[in-house]
């Protein structure tokens, strides 16, 4: 602490020196000025530089939050704690077109018991896919506690690829865990229910007719089928569920390295708490029966295979987590207990049981398998691990503290007292075999801050970033997460994830395959079969093809659109006004929007994502003709007068001059880019390629304006020349951006 202060003093002096030099020149405030003006302490400034992300910088870790009932995933960075993305998982989200375009709507519909979109989920503890117990950065899984579903996201494009209904549980525990090679994605029920869609008399039939269960979703990967070399899917047909007596199930985890065949979790019944241990390797190989179209392993089979046991716990248990090397699992409770996995496995193998619990499940003696217990204080909530050997952290909610301790020696090492009540903890890479050790996040469920600006009764969730790099733990940052009821997160080193920036042209992003509705430039068409109309269209800065579509009232209309852009971040959106549909089309994506054109009239459609200088002009009109329309084919085109024609000729010639001047600008930018070897810089290179592509598209416009000029059709000639100019503007836009990026890169290199 003293050391830091000294350094600060030294720096302070230097900054004063700097200030005296730079002040007369441009009156830039010094660090001391800012500190004084804002009332920052030295510790604040240290925390600021530890978390602030300079423009263009990359966070060390990407985190994925469990957002509770919001049904939407949040992606944020550590240490800047900035939120990068919300991704629709169990809830529709219009910005992404999720639950609004056909592909994702059908995905969600088929994930419901009744073929209707369940509009929210309750997702609290996500899991990242693993290879040999390490995060591989490929997939992410969530359990929906509310409507009993499971979801898989691909971190190649950060989209939800699968949502599947668990037809048994009705309410699931909102957590998933994966086995060390992601063969199984595990989900449990939370509250017991009947599995046969019948109601019961709770007093009479509770024990006999209510059930709980553990579902083992089979995950299957095919390497090398996508751009980043991975494609995986949950196979419902190969998944199984273990039937359990009516226990209320809680947080669970999977073993590793010696304990990798086991899943452990907490359970309770009538106020009595247990830890459960299931040999899932043995269980998933057992004979199944079909219930509601799902393969179910009867409890009797599991008992016969000696694949399940309970440990009697002395008090209320919060969760069970396995230590990084798989040697122990820790049950967080009023009294936190470390269980020795080897002893547990041994007890099961040798059937060292002390009796049976409800449902005939054998009970293991707590004392036989316990490694030791510690009391950390009032309301201990969660445990997390870091890379220090045998070190764990627990949050003590009521005592407002986090304790660092050693689970091998059972010694408390360090305590940090906080200004808030910590609950759920997360260390980057924390549920993998090798957790990292510089950051710890702690959730604050209350969020009672005297100075935090209030924007109404509905408040965000809060999470603190705690620096655990040194011997002393320090609270660095208070992060707010809106539209989020925050529980756990998982966080992965940024270099482990390799996302794509565009799709191969024509990709249905939900399957990762080329869509049958892929459309390329020049192949746009409108197909009609009876009252079914399919529009195969394309999107590119700054027009939609086709721009005019006419249908009959009552037609079932589908816009199948392909974004032809190759440039990064060049997303287009699409909607037909007042028809309730919206799609997001990232570069290369093909998606479809279907609606019944049940009202007559003129309906504008447009690009909903600001894509270019002429974004507002990226529009079209859907004309809906009434049934048996008997109106007159009124109106027509306006004939040009000779004077107007002459004006167009003049405009055309003027435009050619502008085109030539614009080309000079483009040439100068190109010259600069070449001289500075843009091709060595991927971002600049991609933008230059985009600029070239834009100019390439201009060729057709040029052909047209030359043709019409030859024919003396000056209006058309002028308009096509204008279109040529628009392509030039787009090329210049991309070129200038490339120049800017390159200048910055070269500047920082010097």
């Amino acid at each position, binding site marked *: 602490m003293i050391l830091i202060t000294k350094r600060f003093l030294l720096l302070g002096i230097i900054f004063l020196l700097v200030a005296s030099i730079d002040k007369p020149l441009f009156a830039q405030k010094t660090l001391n000025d800012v500190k004084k003006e804002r009332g*920052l302490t030295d510790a604040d400034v240290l925390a600021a530089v530890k978390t602030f992300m300079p423009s263009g910088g990359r966070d060390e870790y990407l985190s994925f939050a469990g*957002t509770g009932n919001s049904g939407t995933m949040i992606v944020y960075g550590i240490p800047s704690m900035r939120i990068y993305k919300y991704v629709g998982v169990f809830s529709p989200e219009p910005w992404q077109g999720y639950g609004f375009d056909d592909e994702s709507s059908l995905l969600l519909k088929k994930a419901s018991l009744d073929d209707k979109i369940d509009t*929210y989920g309750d997702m609290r503890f996500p899991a990242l896919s693993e290879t040999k117990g390490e995060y591989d950065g490929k997939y992410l899984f969530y359990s929906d506690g509310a409507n009993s579903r499971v979801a898989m996201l691909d971190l190649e494009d950060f989209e939800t690829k699968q949502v599947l209904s668990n037809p048994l549980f009705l309410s699931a525990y909102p957590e998933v865990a994966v086995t060390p090679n992601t063969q199984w994605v595990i989900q449990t029920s939370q509250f017991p229910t009947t599995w046969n869609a019948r109601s019961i008399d709770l007093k009479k039939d509770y024990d006999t007719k209510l059930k709980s269960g553990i579902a083992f979703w089979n995950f299957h990967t095919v390497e090398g089928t996508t751009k980043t070399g991975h494609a995986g899917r949950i196979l419902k047909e190969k998944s199984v569920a273990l039937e359990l007596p009516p226990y209320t199930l809680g947080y669970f985890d999977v073993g590793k390295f010696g304990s990798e065949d086991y899943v452990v979790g907490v359970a309770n019944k009538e106020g009595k708490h247990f830890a459960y241990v299931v040999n899932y390797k043995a269980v998933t190989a057992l004979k199944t029966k079909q219930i509601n179209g799902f393969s179910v392993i009867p409890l009797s089979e599991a008992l016969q295979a000696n694949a399940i046991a309970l440990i009697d716990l002395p008090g209320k248990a919060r969760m069970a987590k396995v230590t990084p090397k798989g040697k122990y699992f820790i049950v967080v409770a009023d009294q936190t207990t470390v269980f020795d996995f080897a002893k547990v496995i041994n007890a099961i193998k040798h059937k060292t049981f002390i009796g049976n619990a409800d449902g005939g499940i054998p009970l293991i003696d707590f004392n036989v398998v316990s490694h030791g217990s510690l009391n950390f204080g009032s309301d201990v909530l969660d445990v997390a691990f870091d890379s220090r050997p045998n070190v764990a952290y627990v949050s003590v909610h009521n005592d407002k503290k986090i304790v660092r301790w050693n689970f091998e020696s059972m010694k408390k090492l360090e305590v940090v007292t906080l200004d808030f009540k910590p609950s759920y903890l997360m260390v980057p890479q924390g549920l993998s075999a090798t957790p990292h050790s510089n950051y710890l996040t702690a959730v604050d469920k209350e969020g009672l801050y005297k100075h935090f600006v209030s924007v109404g009764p*509905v408040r965000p969730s809060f999470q603190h970033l705690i620096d655990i790099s040194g011997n002393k733990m320090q609270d660095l940052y208070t992060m707010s997460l809106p539209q989020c009821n925050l529980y756990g997160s998982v966080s992965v080193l940024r270099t482990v994830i390799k996302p794509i920036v565009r799709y191969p042209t024509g990709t249905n992003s939900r399957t990762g395959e080329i869509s049958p509705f892929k459309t390329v430039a020049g192949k746009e068409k409108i197909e009609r079969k009876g009252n079914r109309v399919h529009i195969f269209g394309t999107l590119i800065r700054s027009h939609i093809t086709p721009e005019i579509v006419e249908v009959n009232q009552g037609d079932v209309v589908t816009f199948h659109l392909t974004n032809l852009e190759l440039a990064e971040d060049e997303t287009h959106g699409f909607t037909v006004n007042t028809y309730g549909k919206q799609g997001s089309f990232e570069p290369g994506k093909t998606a479809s929007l279907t609606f019944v054109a049940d009202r007559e009239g003129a309906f504008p459609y447009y690009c909903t994502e600001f894509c270019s200088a002429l974004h507002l002009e990226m529009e079209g009109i859907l004309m809906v003709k009434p049934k048996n329309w008997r109106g007159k084919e009124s109106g027509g085109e306006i004939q040009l007068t000779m004077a107007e024609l002459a004006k167009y000729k003049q405009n055309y010639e003027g435009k050619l001059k502008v085109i030539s001047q614009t080309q000079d600008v483009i040439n100068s930018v190109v010259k600069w880019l070449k001289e500075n070897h843009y091709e060595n810089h991927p971002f600049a290179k991609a933008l230059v390629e985009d600029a070239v592509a834009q100019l390439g598209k201009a060729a057709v416009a040029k052909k047209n304006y030359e043709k019409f000029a030859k024919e003396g059709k000056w209006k058309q000639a002028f308009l096509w020349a204008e279109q040529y100019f628009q392509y030039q503007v787009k090329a210049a836009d991309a070129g200038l951006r490339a120049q800017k990026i390159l200048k910055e890169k070269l500047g920082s290199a010097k």
Partner: protein
Amino acid sequence: MMKIMKNFKQYISLFLVALLIGFTLAFTGCGKKQKKEAAIGTPRGTETFGQVVQRRGMTADDILAAAKTYTPDHLQDEYVVINSGGQAGNLPVYLVPSMRLVKYAPTNARQAYDGYGYSTETKGLMKTGFIDGVEILWGDTHHPGISEKNGDYDGKWLAINDKANPRMFVLDLKDFEVKQVVNNPLFRSNHGGAFFTPNSEYVMEATQYPAPYDHKYHPLNDVNFRKYWRGGLTYWKFDDAKGRIDEKKSFTFELPPYTQDLSDAGKNASYGWGFTNSFCTEMYIGGDMQGRPPFEAGCSSRDVDYMHVTNWKKAAELVKQGKYKLINGMKVIPIDEAVKYGLLYLIPEPKSPHGVDVDPTGDYILVAGKLDSHAWVYSFAKIMKAIKDKNFEGHDSYGIPIIALQTALHGSVEVGLGPLHNQFDPKKGIVYTSVYVDSWTTKWDYINLKVLDHVSSNYNIGHLVAAHGDTKHPQGKYLIELDKLAIDRFNPVGPLHPQNHQLIDISGPKMKIIYDMPLPMGEPHYTVMENVNLLHTIDAYPVGTDIVTLKKAPYAVNAGEEHIKRYGNNVEVFGTINDGVVTPGNINVNQGQNVIIHLTNTGQTKVDHFVYEVASYDQQYRWRPGETASLEFVADKSGMFPLMLDKMHTPDGRQLEGYLAVKYNAKADNDRVMAFSKRIQIDNQMQKFKPSAIELKNLLPGEMEFLNYGCTACHKFGKDFNGPDLLMVDKRRSDEWLRSWIMHPEKHQKEASIEAMRQHYKLAMPNQNVSAQDVGKIIEFLKAKSTQVLNQQE
């Protein structure tokens, strides 16, 4: 020359700063080499300030920026920024200078976290925004406006438009909740809204894409387009005391079918006037598939577009006198009437403009046209003089007088390629303009017409916002650029990028970017920045409040008075959430009954937020402190459904409050199956669901078709269900018969066995419009599945 010298000096001084930092680092003894990859994740140990700065490669500017934005718990943020969420249909809210997101206030998309669109009350509110009966569950929110008093924000209300579905939303800033949705009965699209007049007399909403007011079909061609298609500008009467739009007292200017864009209301001298810009005054109809160049070419072919100048004050008086035409229930001032009474004028403006912004004095109007490198400054005094002198250069084809550009112009300044929007500084005459193509912000003097400073953005800025930057009293200090592209600024998160909002310190003579904030959901267009001192939010409602009406809910009950009413097919629960416990716990109903659950949350503190939900019924809501709200649904599924309560501000997790026990009823179950079958038919109008190749490979042949046609709603293998057991059905019936039966069940109704089955199951096999190709696959599946199930049973 002077400027170059000055730049050079600045460069040198920056260099010195960098050098000094370098020395500092060297002396603090942390010149260690970059840690090896393998060491990532091991404890760094306690670091000094210098070590942190070096490890993170921070410059002097970075350190200053960190100190200017980092806001520890003992400090308060200074400003709140309320953004449009674009196609996310919500309002992202964040704080300045910490740039922390605090809210996504829903406007027109259901949002589970808030419960918006889940309670009967908020569902009802959303329903008022459905158009022509179309269920619209999203929106494209564009331009929020804060209500004003004397030309400054009063912080009471917020209005925002929906471009995709021409509607206006009004929020109460006491609780940041939507209170009103108003549909525009004339428009098919809007864009230029919501702009408050200086005392919140009116909220302006202009069309974007024109459409016929009669909502009828007229063949699309040049002549009809000019005749039937119309733009418009609605002045929604706003009741500032109630915070509601009064539709009956509102009126609309009929406008030519130019594509109108943003607006702003005059202030001080220009009070009583409104300014609305436009593009595509060519009235061009694109049609690339018809051989016409696209809209983007035809809509930008003239050199100028028109700024519309409207006199709302005088118009309001005329409307009061009954001088309007009623169309679709809206009071419309026809173009010729507006011209006759001197309410409407046009002035040429730079091509394809976006922002039209009245300066704090009200004397100048600034327009940024995206296809011109200049920003243009109009003098209100000159405009008034031209009107008074009837000094017009002519009339447009609708007879609207056009004021010559030179007559109205104060001057123009070259600010860069693609100027887009303007925000003002407290210093007189200083404005900031976002420049889209050049990706920078220009600070310039619009009175003396000179550029003062540029700052580069990353990349392509749309709108800008400065603290109170569109009011009579801008507060300066902070400016935010709303970049449209982020490209290389953030950790990659897939093809869909976040937006980038760059915070700029404008307190000194040089603008400095001090924070890059990713905006993670939605695409903000316009935004407002309000001083936190104006906020007057509440934490709780009086017990029993309906948050939409803010009145006492008729269903509110006190603890101890909970009861259940059963009448007709309804089960109505009057319950409470008291001390985190729901009464009543268990609810017993019969399948098919209508269930209404009213709950009153008696909690009154900030942490008394509860989510109550019915598992697998997609029913949930968040009860705010003191709130009474209702869930209403048909108990169409039988079984035991957990009723759960989540105390949101405690870490306790969900508690089981009881069960919704739904007793099986054969008729109701049949209704459910029929509804299922109907949904399947609607699904099949869309493209059929097709899983990825991996999943497909693991399905039995025809299984996908069996699912897609919804056969699972009634049939199982090895078990009777809503329909007969399909196990070995292929042995009982010929392929030919099955094919005919599946495709045309109505043809077989008279067969005795079919008649008997219909009696037994009380359900007829529906015609699911199975195609000839798919029926073969389904029959193949019936055989394969039977074999699989039989093998399993052995």
